[in-house]
């Protein structure tokens, strides 16, 4: 469904991504690994039209996305959950869902409430009053009601308690089982092992390693070499 062909992205003058290729099929979860500053977020932003792609192309279901405006890309069904969640703090939980809601979506706001009872309890609360975990759930929920054909998650488990991480893992598997592919930036390898079908590792803006879920366990040492120590 998604196809990136030697993508080169820039922030102003700095060249961040170098010839990145990857593909994603229906019902697949692709994890993008890499250190801070390796270009993971830039990759997602390139897909969403937030970063200048000077070379290469991005296609989704055959449509060219390269350098179109973000709202057009969102209209194609690419739903983005940014790293810092970007919940609208002055809007209530319900309003956050309401402005994103697309009647065509498989998830109605009520479905979301049964999926995330916690959000139902807090639906009148301001987005700014939510805990980190609740914000993350709301951010994912906000993407789900927007009728996603593909989900893009930027470090959804970052800074969250293990219980909530588990819950998010469940949601990811749940969405995946409906056939919606997911692009996942994640630094926590154990999460990737549980949910990802395949992975790529970015270093200094280049793909340095790719593999299947099995490789995540088999090549741990190699991957860790890229990620940290």
């Amino acid at each position, binding site marked *: 469904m998604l196809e990136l062909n030697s993508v080169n992205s820039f922030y102003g003058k700095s060249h961040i991504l170098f010839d990145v290729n990857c593909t994603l099929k229906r019902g697949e979860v692709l994890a993008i690994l890499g250190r801070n500053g390796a270009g993971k977020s830039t990759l997602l932003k390139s897909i969403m039209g937030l970063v200048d792609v000077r070379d290469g192309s991005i296609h989704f279901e055959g449509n060219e996305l390269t350098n179109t405006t973000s*709202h057009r890309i*969102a209209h194609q069904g690419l739903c983005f959950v940014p790293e810092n969640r*970007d919940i*609208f*703090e002055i809007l209530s939980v319900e*309003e956050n869902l309401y*402005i*994103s809601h697309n009647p065509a979506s498989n998830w109605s706001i009520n479905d979301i409430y049964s999926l995330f009872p916690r959000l139902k309890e807090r639906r009148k609360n301001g987005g700014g009053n939510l805990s980190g975990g609740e914000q993350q759930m709301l951010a994912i929920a906000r993407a789900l009601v927007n009728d996603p054909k593909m989900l893009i998650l930027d470090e959804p488990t970052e800074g969250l308690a293990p219980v909530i991480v588990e819950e998010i893992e469940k949601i990811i598997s749940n969405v995946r089982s409906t056939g919606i592919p997911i692009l996942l930036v994640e630094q926590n390898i154990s999460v990737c092992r549980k949910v990802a079908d395949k992975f790529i590792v970015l270093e200094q803006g280049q793909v340095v390693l790719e593999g299947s879920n099995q490789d995540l366990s088999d090549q741990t040492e190699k991957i860790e070499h890229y990620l940290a120590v």
Partner: protein
Amino acid sequence: MELFFFQLLNGLGLGVIYFLLSVGLTITFGLLNFVNFAHGAFYMVGAYVTFVIVSLTGNFWLALLIAPLVIGTLAIALEQSVVKFSYVLEHKYQILVTLGVALMLQELVIMIWGPIGKNVSPPSSLAGIIEIGDFIYPKYRAFVIAFSALIAIVVWWGLEKTKFGALVRAGSENAQMVGLLGVNITRLFSITFGLGGLLAGLAGVLAAPLRGADPFMGVEALGIAFIVVVIGGMGSFLGALVGGLVVGVMQSVMSSVWPEGASLMVYAAMAAVILSRPRGLFGRA
């Protein structure tokens, strides 16, 4: 005492007009982070369009209906042709561009109608006074208060209870994220800009029978709108309402105590608020 009450009511009437004038400015600022120095011109042109419609048809109600739409359209046309290209520029250049627009509109008005102001008479049904016991009050001013209050409620409802309003509020917090939800942000911008202009035009319509239409009322109105927005807090609906009323009442009451000092006071208040509390009464940090 009665005089005081009279002035208080006058201040209220002035205040609601100030609110209509300022609310568009504050919301465009909140959403676009854009300061429109041409905002006062919308108010002025609103008064002139009223003058034209009333002198052609003799029907104020028609002006009340049509003039705001004309100004809203004008605002959108300006946004599309000039203003939107300045969004990417620094604040100071945005100010200069809109300053140029304001100057052009003002001179255009003088070219057409001359530098001398025009009088607009209130509708005959609202001529005269209402008497409540001993207290008398001009009918038209009473109408302005009631009508503006109604509009204030409509604007509040639109901002708080509709999807469009929620998008505007969301956009003022994080426009990029709104775009990522599939909303065409540039269109949201121009519609909001147009609605802000429409409300300023409406303020001009309501003000026309009270103070006539003159080419320099735009500059004056811009100053007032800035005071209101600064005191109330940039980007805040409630700020525009409270700020408008505070400034209106302050000006009206002061003008019976120390007429020359009325304007002095409000500008001093503005400076004091910026220095001591830059976010105003209700502005977000």
